[in-house]
């Protein structure tokens, strides 16, 4: 099977369609034309840059470059987790908790998947390690951000309830128990829905990409199953770790609810 390479003028043809959409939305006064075009331009620039970096890393194939790239991806993901929270923990805790829990779960699941399951030689071969880490980080990031956002929002809204439970002598972890569970659940819902709908409602993006690039569907399906499993595991443990650490940080050593540790509150 041969792969048809896309030339830049072919992509330019596709961009004409985006321009058509922008023109239409302008005429329909949706006020979206500008942001649509900016987003499309960002896609081109960011992906082209990442393509260059990937080409370089693939060519070098050295562990230290792969590690550096992974570190950059992790820090960007950590920043994004922080940005997606309406109320965040002060003093670097929002970034720290998000980044550390993503590091613990996404990196260990990636290494485990490479070494134990796929087994490329060497184990960090960029063709395998970078896409898997990227998918894991992206999804874990969503889970961690959703979970932390739900947690901080929940304790803010239910402050009186948590404190009434504390007044009755409940330990902090019991008083915040339902909110914490709810937060972990909301982080896990996207991947559970994606697994439940996979192949029926839509063809997963990674599998589609592999098929387009010439992989036989039977192999693409197996990789998709693998990736969904590891995403579920990475997201699950990452969200659990982040929400647990976040909840702990919202109470002090005297088991007092400390909303003053969140931004946007007194």
């Amino acid at each position: 099977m041969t792969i048809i390479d896309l030339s830049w003028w072919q992509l330019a043809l596709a961009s004409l369609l985006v321009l058509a959409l922008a023109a239409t939305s302008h005429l329909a006064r949706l006020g979206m034309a500008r942001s649509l075009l900016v987003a499309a331009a960002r896609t081109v620039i960011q992906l082209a840059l990442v393509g260059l970096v990937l080409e370089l890393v693939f060519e070098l194939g050295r562990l230290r470059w792969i590690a550096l790239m992974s570190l950059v991806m992790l820090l960007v993901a950590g920043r994004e987790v922080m940005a997606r929270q309406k109320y965040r923990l002060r003093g670097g805790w929002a970034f720290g908790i998000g980044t550390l829990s993503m590091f613990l779960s996404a990196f260990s699941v990636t290494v485990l998947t490479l070494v134990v399951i796929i087994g490329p030689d060497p184990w960090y071969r960029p063709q395998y390690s970078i896409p898997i880490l990227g998918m894991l980080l992206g999804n874990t990031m969503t889970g961690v951000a959703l979970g932390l956002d739900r947690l901080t929002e929940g304790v803010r809204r239910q402050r009186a309830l948590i404190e009434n439970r504390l007044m009755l002598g409940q330990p902090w972890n019991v008083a915040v128990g339902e909110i914490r569970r709810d937060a972990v659940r909301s982080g896990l819902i996207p991947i559970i829905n994606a697994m439940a709908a996979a192949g029926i409602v839509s063809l997963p993006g990674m599998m589609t990409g592999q098929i387009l690039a010439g992989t036989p569907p039977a192999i693409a399906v197996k990789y998709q199953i693998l990736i969904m499993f590891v995403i579920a595991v990475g997201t699950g443990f990452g969200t659990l770790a982040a929400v647990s650490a976040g909840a702990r940080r919202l109470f002090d050593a005297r088991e007092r609810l400390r909303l003053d540790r969140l931004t946007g509150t007194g």
Partner: protein
Amino acid sequence: MNSSGPAGDLALEDVSVGDLEPVSLAVSRGKVICLSGASGSGKTRLLRAVADLEPHGGDCRLGDIRQSETPAHNWRAQVMMIPAESQWWHETVGEHFDADAGDALEALDLPGEATSWSIDRLSSGEKQRLALIRALAREPRALLLDEPTANLDAESIKRVERWLLEIIERRELPTLWVAHDAEQIQRVSNRHLLIRDGRLEES
């Protein structure tokens, strides 16, 4: 839960919170000290500090138990604050009770089946009375009451006062009671302190 009987007097030692000057105060077993003052004067915050719900200066003692040396949830289970607006998190009343409500329901003019009521259908007055029963069923050894009759009609107020005073006396509970109504303060308090300009004054 705390079946070893009354623990002793409640003592505030230089407790400072917010704009309040440090407060030192002793509440004897079975006695009620009423606190009053304009809204925002810091009455509720003082109760919260005694319950260790917010950072504060100074320390508190219940008999020989020190707040700063006791795990926070143990302290709060003994020195129990009951907020003006009670909160409920399960679906029915009964699920919030650790222990049997006993004859408290009847004493507060609530039917025996009130424990099976759903939270959604409770009036504010019913919530307030049930919250008192819920807290006292856990057998605290000191009480911090924040306007415990604010949502009640005149007849219920008297009934709740009588019931609370009987328990406070029988179980020998030192009690801080935030109240507005001068007549109520007269009826329930052994001593009345007024918070004005960040300071506690004898009234």
